[in-house]
């Protein structure tokens, strides 16, 4: 394939969408896993096992977020801009070059098999290598690893001194991002190291697969299957809907079945989830677009990650515990719905003002919802944490 900056930017952007989509589908599965004995269907030993599975999936999801952040760093360093949009779930098979549909599905053998296929190492693929042409759109690849191989090829074939823009762009490091393994991108060496890190975490290396996402999912699948055989009544997941949505957005319903949440309260909570999730992405996008020299980069990263861990996670779990209102015993779930790429403005003070205002509004919505009679415990926690976050943004203004 011919090397060009615009080809590279487009491949990197596709990688961003893909990593981001994977992170969401993993998180969705993790949210659906039962956490307590009183949810029923579990012995304490099974509880031990499911909590381990949940933690392993969260771990992989966090590494996908790292990969997204890492791709942003590379994008920023080669003249692009961090990008967070992606099609809503379910995503069409033909959308990505590897021809696998992305969907939100609860934890179980089916979801795990899907995850294994996303992360399969290139040398274990059974699909034939198609001849690639410059005209393919999207570019054909058979696995995430192969997509990164294409990116690597581009970086190797473009002149280093012209490709990379020196300065602070692309140099977000572990000190401000909460990602201890993120590599600041300055040049070809660092960019290639970043790509190696991403592929090693995802599919492992030829001599060590045991600790890759691929292996983790395979291990989890194997233990789940064994446990199910031992105890057919064992049910580790909450009965969440596949691809639940709180509302039909413009692009929804195009590529597969979505399931509307009918319970009004769960639906409002679903909206709140999507809004906090968008705010988190906007904060991160701003930080990565501005680079570490930005006065708000650290605050935005802190706030976004705190929102992820202490608001989005409990909200996602709360949704998975609430009835969908569809009358079939199903539960609601997080949609990870996105509409537009509404970035925060470059000017720091304006970005801060807009973010603070948005967080404040969301905290108020959360407070209102939390007073409702059937609000699960997680909502109270999320509400208190969101208030803190809004407070941190407000006091920085």
């Amino acid at each position, binding site marked *: 394939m011919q090397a060009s900056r615009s080809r590279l930017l487009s491949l990197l952007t596709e990688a961003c969408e893909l990593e981001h989509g994977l992170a969401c589908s993993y998180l969705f599965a993790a949210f659906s896993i039962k956490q307590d004995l009183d949810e029923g269907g579990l012995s*304490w*030993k099974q509880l*031990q096992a499911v*909590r*381990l599975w949940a*933690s*392993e999936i969260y*771990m992989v999801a966090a*590494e996908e977020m790292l990969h997204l952040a890492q791709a942003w760093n590379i994008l920023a360093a080669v003249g692009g801009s961090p990008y967070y949009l992606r099609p809503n779930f379910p995503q069409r098979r033909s959308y990505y070059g590897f021809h696998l549909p992305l969907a939100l599905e609860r934890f179980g053998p089916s979801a795990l098999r899907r995850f294994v296929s996303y992360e399969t190492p290139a040398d274990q693929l059974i699909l034939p290598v198609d001849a690639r042409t410059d005209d393919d759109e999207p570019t054909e690849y058979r696995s995430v690893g192969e997509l990164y191989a294409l990116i690597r090829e581009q970086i190797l074939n473009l002149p280093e001194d012209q490709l990379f823009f020196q300065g602070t762009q692309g140099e977000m490091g*572990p000190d401000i991002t909460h990602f*201890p*393994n993120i590599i600041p991108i300055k040049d070809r060496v660092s960019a290639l190291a970043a790509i190696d890190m991403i592929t090693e*975490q995802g599919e492992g290396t030829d001599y060590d697969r*045991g*600790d*890759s996402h691929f*292996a*983790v999912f395979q291990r989890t699948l194997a233990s789940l299957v064994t446990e199910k055989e031992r105890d057919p009544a064992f049910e580790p997941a909450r009965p969440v809907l596949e691809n639940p949505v709180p509302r039909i957005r413009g692009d929804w319903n195009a590529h597969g079945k979505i399931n509307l949440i009918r319970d009004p309260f769960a639906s409002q909570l679903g909206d709140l989830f999507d809004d906090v999730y968008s705010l988190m992405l906007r904060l991160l996008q701003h930080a990565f677009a501005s680079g570490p020299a930005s006065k708000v980069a650290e605050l935005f990263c802190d706030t976004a990650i705190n929102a992820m861990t202490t608001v989005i996670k409990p909200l996602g779990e709360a949704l998975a515990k609430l009835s969908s209102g569809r009358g079939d015993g199903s539960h609601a779930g997080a949609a990870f719905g996105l509409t537009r790429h509404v970035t925060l403005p470059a000017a720091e003070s304006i970005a801060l003002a807009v973010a603070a205002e948005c967080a404040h509004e969301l905290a108020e919505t959360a407070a209102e919802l939390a007073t409702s009679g059937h609000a699960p415990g997680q909502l109270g926690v999320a509400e208190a944490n969101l208030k803190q976050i809004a407070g941190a943004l407000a006091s920085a203004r």
Partner: protein
Amino acid sequence: MSDDLDRCDVAVVGAGVAGALIAYRLAAANYRVVMLEAGPAGRNRQDLVADYSLAAIKTPRSPYADNQPSSPVWSPDSEKDYIQLGPSPFKSTYLRRVGGSTWHMLGNMPRHVPADFRLATSYGVGVDWPIDYDDLEPWYCEAETELGVAGDHAELNGLHGAYRSRAFPMSKIWPAYGDIFVAKAVEGLTFEGADVRVLTTPQARNSRPYDGRPACAGNSSCVPICPIGAKYDATVHVSKATTAGAVLRTQAVVTRIELDSMTRRVSALRYTRWDEQGRRDERRLRADIYVIAAHSIETPRLLLISSDSDAAPTGVANGSGQVGRNLMDHLQGQMAAVVPQPLFPYRGPPTTVGVDTFRDGTFRASHAAFRLSIGNDGMGRVETPFAALEQKLVEGLIGSRLRVALGDRLIRQFRISYSTEMLPSAHNRVTLADAVSDSFGMPRAQLSLHLEDYNRLAFEKAAALISSIFDRLEIPDSDRKPQPKDTYSGAGHIIGTTRMGTDAGSSVVNQHCRAHEHDNLFIVGASTFPTGGTANPTLTVAALALRAASKISSLLQRGS
């Protein structure tokens, strides 16, 4: 079983981390290796967790039914389980089972700092090691890779001169919510002229999947058991060793090291296989090279028991009279408190950060170096959550008032502990209690320990430093619970008792852990440390074991 008398290239006594690493490396190099392990192989990890969860007091031994007092290989669980000659009690314990004491260790894996190897030259106290930091540095790197140590390379590179030639195999374990709060609070604090900085602790606990084991998920029960194997324990290398072809004999207690009276070389190991039905079976194993890796109490015990009127009248390898002497630990204490702000303890590993500033300095001429660890487990032993519950119940609280008041206390519980280095001393020692034998007819060990001013003074210094950190946290005096004067707890670090040195007259093994007097005998483990150093011992144990394995391999190659 027909292997009454069998032969191998290398016989290893003890399947703890020291023995297992050597067995693994040599088996991987195609030598015939046999491990003799006194204790049983583990039951299923979840069964151990079950026993832990039921135990009234979660002591280090609580998950291990196989090591309770009724077992032939019962293991000490507190100072009360030893024969103590005093004047001060020795408090650290160990575990006899496949994997050894790593099962219930915490998992902190710092390296020693360069000055730890030359205390005598630098500060006129203790003794120097026959090796220095430079000798061990490459082995530290290997040990970190083998055990899987997570750490912050940039932050720790060069700590008190301890350079690092290789990054950790995993990035650091996240500090806890409270740690970050405390680190901010102490910014700019100085103590005795030095900057007090909070540093992350390297630990053998996975920060991402590693070596087929999962990332730490914060089960917070590392001592006494990690339910998911995210923390390293030596079963990892025991199974690597057996996969590479080593033979593991469990429930095989080595009762005697036999010597050839002409050459004084070790000629065989005598051992007893036992089972739960009370059967005993006496065996012998011959090898070209023998490795004793039974840890710092059982190793000298076995050496002393094996005395031979002809070839080793005072005990195997004991021509210097040093076997059993220089018993050391890191004597610890803690200050607990209830902090005004919530720190949300009880959620991650018990500790993830500490203060390493006072691990070296000229003060070591007069008092012990010490390290602080900042806790993430509430008030530790000072006030358990159950004790806090009792207190609230006695206050007459019920319902939501009980829930809120108890919660409010638990989320603000906090402790900082200090760990001090002991100096080697001939009168701190392991000897045999000739009149008291165990069920294998082996005399039991008895321990003598003396608390010295060198440590007392360090206790005071550490307590003063913690007080100044507590001041920064604005903890009222009434909410502080100091350690009573001159009391201490053990760190679980059993050190000394077969020290290494260049001089056969004053040490037991040479710089490769090879016995001065018996050239086919190696002794590995923290028993070979000439001084305690300022780090938890296991990484150094592993580094020395890997180094000894390479020495043994080259000896076997040469056919000696």
